[in-house]
């Protein structure tokens, strides 16, 4: 039987040479007449092992990685399949502690299946959720999302079922499903990984949302920094359409739903839902005041569900396995699993899907194995550029919405960025303001001007110019940004800044070097 050799097609694997590895394997197959074929799977998110080549064995898939293109000839020496005894073998992939200790609901298929194969997708329960949804009344679907307790995974954590209810109840037509795939937070890549590894899940989730609220058109707003994701999603949408999973007659039900893919253009602010809608309408991505809520007056002024990729993906778990099943994971009002993304200076970076409630110590030390540099970890930024930098004293806080809010931090989209002891936290605080200044849409004054002033003031503090007075100004500025901004960009930029002031105050003072 023809054997499959899996070489990930994912961005990270690609950035480390996976395409060249795949070419080299294909050449080996041809050269030696091997009865094998290269399958470009997505990644499992074991990023320190990429490019991770996998082959099938009676016990499960055996992994080899990281594999450089020049190692392929040795790996398949003489045209033979390598065994677990090969020096580059990491053994059975699913037995790796990093993977085995996870609870993968949303990412169960990631890296396992060929993302372009609906057969693979269906073989692992893909499509069950949509079939179930087609047999339900819209209100039943919305009720399932409510009782599962799914909260928006984009960062704001708004209950998805309540948003869907608002759109379902809105009298105006047409209605739209907008998928926010403008994953701009540094340290986050779960949306990208899901779209590249299991694109049909997103398509299915959007179709379910359409059935729930009565929308027939969905739009994915994807960031232009993700060229490979664009290629994968484009192909997946065409395949889904050909298979009747999208189009005028969803799986023969007589219900219609289709999806368009639209590209962003390099503006972080367009991850904010109202800016995103402006951008889809062909305008500058400037924030709209709320109300009106996008659920009532969203795209083209019509009722619109705007959900993150992972929120829509979660709908497939809820509809396939039931709301009760989903709600058994997590704690308090943080239900289900969260795909945490380990990045920055970490030895074993990648995707860790676990129920809410895991701690940073577990993530960074048990899964991540500490810093990549081998130096002590000093700070962990959680939740993207608007999230807090946390010192060791907070690394046992459970990663859940409530517990993080209680320590002046947030989960955001689940990005966890590790910094070792060489990081200059004063520089990070200054960058937080600089990033806000660079990405501000300019609509509201606190964000547009406050961020620029913030950079100046922090710079003065760091260089020893009247630090006490400037610190007072900085506190005032943070308050103005937090209370006076239209959206979360200005409103949350104070979070990383204050976390540095609170936890790393020494580093806001000028260093010996800076004084000279």
């Amino acid at each position, binding site marked *: 039987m023809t054997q499959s050799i899996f070489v990930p097609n994912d961005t990270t694997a*690609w950035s480390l040479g996976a395409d060249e590895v795949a070419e080299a394997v294909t050449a080996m197959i041809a050269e030696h007449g091997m009865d094998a074929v290269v399958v470009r799977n997505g990644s499992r998110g074991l990023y320190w092992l990429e490019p991770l080549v996998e082959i099938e064995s009676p016990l499960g898939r055996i992994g080899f990685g990281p594999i450089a293109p020049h190692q392929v000839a040795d790996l398949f020496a003489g045209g033979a399949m390598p065994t677990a005894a090969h020096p580059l073998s990491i053994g059975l992939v699913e037995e790796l502690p990093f993977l085995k200790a996870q609870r993968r609901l949303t990412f169960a298929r990631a890296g396992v299946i060929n993302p372009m194969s609906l057969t693979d997708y269906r073989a692992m329960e893909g499509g069950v959720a949509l079939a179930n949804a087609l047999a339900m009344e819209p209100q039943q679907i919305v009720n399932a999302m409510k009782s599962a307790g799914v909260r928006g995974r984009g960062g704001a954590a708004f209950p998805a079922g309540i948003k869907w209810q608002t759109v379902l109840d809105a009298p105006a037509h047409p209605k739209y499903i907008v998928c926010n795939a403008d994953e701009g937070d*540094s340290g986050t890549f779960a949306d990208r990984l899901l779209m590249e590894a299991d694109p049909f899940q997103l398509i299915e989730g959007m179709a379910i949302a359409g059935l729930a609220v009565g929308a027939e058109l969905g739009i994915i707003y994807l960031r232009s920094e993700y060229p490979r994701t664009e290629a994968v999603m484009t192909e997946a949408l065409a395949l889904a359409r050909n298979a009747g999973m999208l189009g005028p007659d969803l799986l023969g039900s007589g219900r219609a739903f289709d999806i368009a893919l639209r*590209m962003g253009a390099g503006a972080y602010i367009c991850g904010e839902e109202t800016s995103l809608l402006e951008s889809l309408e*062909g305008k500058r991505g400037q924030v709209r005041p709320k109300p009106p809520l996008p659920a009532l007056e969203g795209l083209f002024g019509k009722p619109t569900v705007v959900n993150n990729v992972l929120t829509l993906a979660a709908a497939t778990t809820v509809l396939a396995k039931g709301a009760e099943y989903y709600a058994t994971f997590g704690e308090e009002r943080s239900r289900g699993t969260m795909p945490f993304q380990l990045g*920055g200076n970490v030895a074993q970076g990648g995707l860790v899907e676990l129920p809410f409630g895991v701690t940073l110590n577990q993530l960074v030390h048990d899964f991540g194995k500490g810093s990549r540099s081998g130096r002590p970890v000093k700070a962990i930024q959680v939740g993207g550029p608007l999230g807090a930098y946390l010192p060791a004293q907070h690394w046992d806080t459970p990663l859940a919405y409530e517990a993080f809010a209680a320590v002046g931090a947030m989960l955001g989209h689940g990005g966890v960025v590790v910094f070792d002891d060489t990081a200059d936290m004063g520089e990070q605080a200054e960058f937080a303001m600089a990033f806000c200044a660079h990405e501000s849409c300019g609509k509201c004054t606190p964000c547009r001007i406050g961020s620029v002033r913030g950079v100046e003031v922090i710079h003065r503090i760091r260089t020893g110019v009247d630090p006490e007075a400037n610190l007072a100004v900085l506190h005032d500025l943070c308050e103005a940004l937090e209370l006076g901004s239209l959206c979360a960009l200005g409103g949350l930029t104070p979070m990383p800044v204050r976390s540095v002031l609170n936890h790393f105050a020494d580093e806001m003072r000028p260093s010996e070097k800076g004084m000279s």
Partner: protein
Amino acid sequence: MDDRSETQLQPDLEPNLVEAILREAGPSPTQDALLPILHAVQGQVGHISKETIRSIADAMNLSRAEVQGVVSFYDDFREAPSAKHVVQLCMAEACQAVGCRALAAHAKSQLGVDFGEATPDGAVEIKAVYCFGNCATGPTIRIGNRVHGRVSPERFDALVAPLRSGGRSA
């Protein structure tokens, strides 16, 4: 592979391309078609000139100010031609944690340019961007449409050297 960084055209080709893009958008495209049209022009022409802005505004029944406003808002759209190759360096936190600031300093001193500037031979321009979603294996750069991870200063030099000697970016 599509290489958006190498898109310098003969000037007389530009109006034809813009015309073709607008024709493809249909008889009277609505404003929501503006970003896709601008992406097409940026991708095929390499920049969006004043003349192009005028053509698009006319075709879409928008004011030139509206189109200009959109072009200037988004980082992807440029009003003047870039260097032959644009090298984007991620300068966001996850890459900062693994030395992107040092990599940027190296790139600037090696090429003798700052962000947003091209080398005097017009071969290479460097640009700061924020996040390719490659956060576990930074520092990350993008050359044309190709993303590269774990880029050390040595790897940067190896990737950029061929661009300066007239080769195509991979």
